[in-house]
């Protein structure tokens, strides 16, 4: 560790991992409700489980991005963080707000929570992923602003690199597009239209800039390839992200009341969305092939390759499967969407956080050469358990989606089966999905265990 203020990243990483454990537990509970509708009902109805499941994901990724940034920025700027104290305060404020919101979801009925938080004053609740009470959303804005201030000041006062500027661009984009969460028009179609400005322009535009910058940083550190080369790749990746991803928002506007031209524009633009992810694979493998240093932290490189490959599979391949309007006409809002969502979020975003944690945590814990060979062996097992678990549950959801489309969507009105009957037929597949979910959880527990493997004093 070159700068002592990088240490503020540590609690962010640890808390992000704890939230991930929570997310998986809630996901598993939901998957059991899919099979036995009475499980945990009425204590926790499905919508509450889901709200917690997806909100934990968003919050854990934000914690992960913040931790990663606080680790990366001092090293890129070649100076201490502008205010380590502010970063620590931000951590606790965000933690308390996050925990209070999750408890709110679990302890009172949602309508009650809306009343308690005076949602009527400025209604923003009850929309997918943006379920947080308005007061929490305002809190998020303050947390993000203080974080941006801290990072921007550090960059301004220090060395400016392509990586840090692109990371900042992504973070400012994240903050800007979140503001659309506060706009809730009475017209449902207009509401949906701007809701995608948060959701799509986060995950398929601004977050990809963050992902690219973090991946580039780890590759600079672990391969020693010169920055000219790395920066060039980074620019190409994010250029394709914006060119395909912005107009690609149109693939959400097909069937929700927006003009018909989105059928064409959304299809064509989003068909190019796998390209930046494919470039990330070329990028990672090329840099590793041309590496000038042999770093002992082998697992960080494994995660870097993993996030490129699984991100491409989940976001690129599984996204492309249903992004063309004539296909999406049949797949829209089926389990196929869920399949894509799971592998894309895991591969592109959860895995880049793992990459950063696996790279930075050993250094933060006083092991500049990475964890011991024994600990890395355990971590490698956890990597495969999680990756195979997630790919397995994605394949199960894909089969579920195809069955649903076959029975419910393709036949005409006289022959199509009723939703609930179709779901009953899919039950065996949902059981397989749950089993792969358990595997993913075991993978995460193995990952936790790797932190406690004693150093065997041998350098690999």
């Amino acid at each position, binding site marked *: 560790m070159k700068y002592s203020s990088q240490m503020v990243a540590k609690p962010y990483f640890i808390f992000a991992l704890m939230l991930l454990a929570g997310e998986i537990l809630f996901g598993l509970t939901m998957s059991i409700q899919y099979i036995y509708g009475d499980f945990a009902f009425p204590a926790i109805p499905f919508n509450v489980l889901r709200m917690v499941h997806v909100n934990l994901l968003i919050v854990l990724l934000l914690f992960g991005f913040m931790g990663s940034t606080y680790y990366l920025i001092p090293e890129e700027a070649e100076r201490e963080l502008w205010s380590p104290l502010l970063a620590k305060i931000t951590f606790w404020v965000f933690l308390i707000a996050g925990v209070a919101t999750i408890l709110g979801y679990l302890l009172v009925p949602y309508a009650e929570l809306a009343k308690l938080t005076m949602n009527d004053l400025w209604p923003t609740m009850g929309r997918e992923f943006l379920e947080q009470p308005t007061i929490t959303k305002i809190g998020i804005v303050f947390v993000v602003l203080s974080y941006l201030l801290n990072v921007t000041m550090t960059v301004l006062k220090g060395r400016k690199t392509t990586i840090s500027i692109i990371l900042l661009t992504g973070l400012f984009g994240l903050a800007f597009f979140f503001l659309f969460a506060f706009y809730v028009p009475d017209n449902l179609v207009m509401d949906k239209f701007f809701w995608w400005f948060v959701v799509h322009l986060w995950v398929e535009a601004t977050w990809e800039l963050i992902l690219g910058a973090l991946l580039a940083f780890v590759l600079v550190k672990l391969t020693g390839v010169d920055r000219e080369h790395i920066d060039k790749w980074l620019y190409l990746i994010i250029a394709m992200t914006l060119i395909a991803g912005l107009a690609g928002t149109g693939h959400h506007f097909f069937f929700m009341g927006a003009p018909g031209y989105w059928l064409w524009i959304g299809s064509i633009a989003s068909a190019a969305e796998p390209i930046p992810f494919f470039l990330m694979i070329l990028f990672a493998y090329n840099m590793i092939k041309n590496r000038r240093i042999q770093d002992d932290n082998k697992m960080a490189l494994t995660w870097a390759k993993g996030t490129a490959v699984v991100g491409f599979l989940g976001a690129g391949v599984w996204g492309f499967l249903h992004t063309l309007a004539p296909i999406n006409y049949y797949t829209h809002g089926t389990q196929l969407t869920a399949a894509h969502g799971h592998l894309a979020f895991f591969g592109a975003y959860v895995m880049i956080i793992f990459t950063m944690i696996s790279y930075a945590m050993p250094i933060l814990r006083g092991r500049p050469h990475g964890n011991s060979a024994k600990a890395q062996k355990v971590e490698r097992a956890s990597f495969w358990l999680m990756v195979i678990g997630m790919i397995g549950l994605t394949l199960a959801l894909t089969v579920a989606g195809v069955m649903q489309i076959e029975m419910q969507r393709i036949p005409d009105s006289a022959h*199509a089966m009723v939703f609930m009957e179709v779901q009953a037929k899919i039950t065996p597949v949902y059981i397989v999905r749950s089993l792969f979910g358990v595997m993913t959880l075991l993978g995460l527990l193995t990952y936790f265990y790797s932190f406690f493997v004693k150093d065997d004093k041998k350098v690999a």
Partner: protein
Amino acid sequence: MSERITKDMARNIYFGGGIFAILIFVGLAFDSVHQIPKLSHTENITKSVVAGKKIWENNDCVGCHTLLGEGAYYAPELGNVFQRLGSSDETTFKAYMQGWMAAQPLNIPDRRKMPQFHLTPEQVNDLADFLIWTSKVNTQQWPPNIQG
């Protein structure tokens, strides 16, 4: 291929392509905002439809159902429930909704459960009006059939 591209060229592609993409997207977004009121029949949004949307949100209905294909995939699509279960008739649909909402949760072992939301008959009426309005949005002929 990348050997022939320099960092400066890559940066120019990023700025040029990025600005081009932003302009196209913003332009189309403006046009969409202009067209959506017609495509969704904004003129038919009554007080009751607005109140119904609030009830939809305040009870997180989207946490189980999809509406025009967006939401969770645990429970049926409701964008065309007016046609499917109300035979496109207001009186039939509203009577159905009152009965359905009062009967939750259904006592069928292991069937997925819908919670009891304790809505007043007036609130159920608003919710029904919201779903009726939604069912008339121009969705480019989606869903493919009545089952949603």
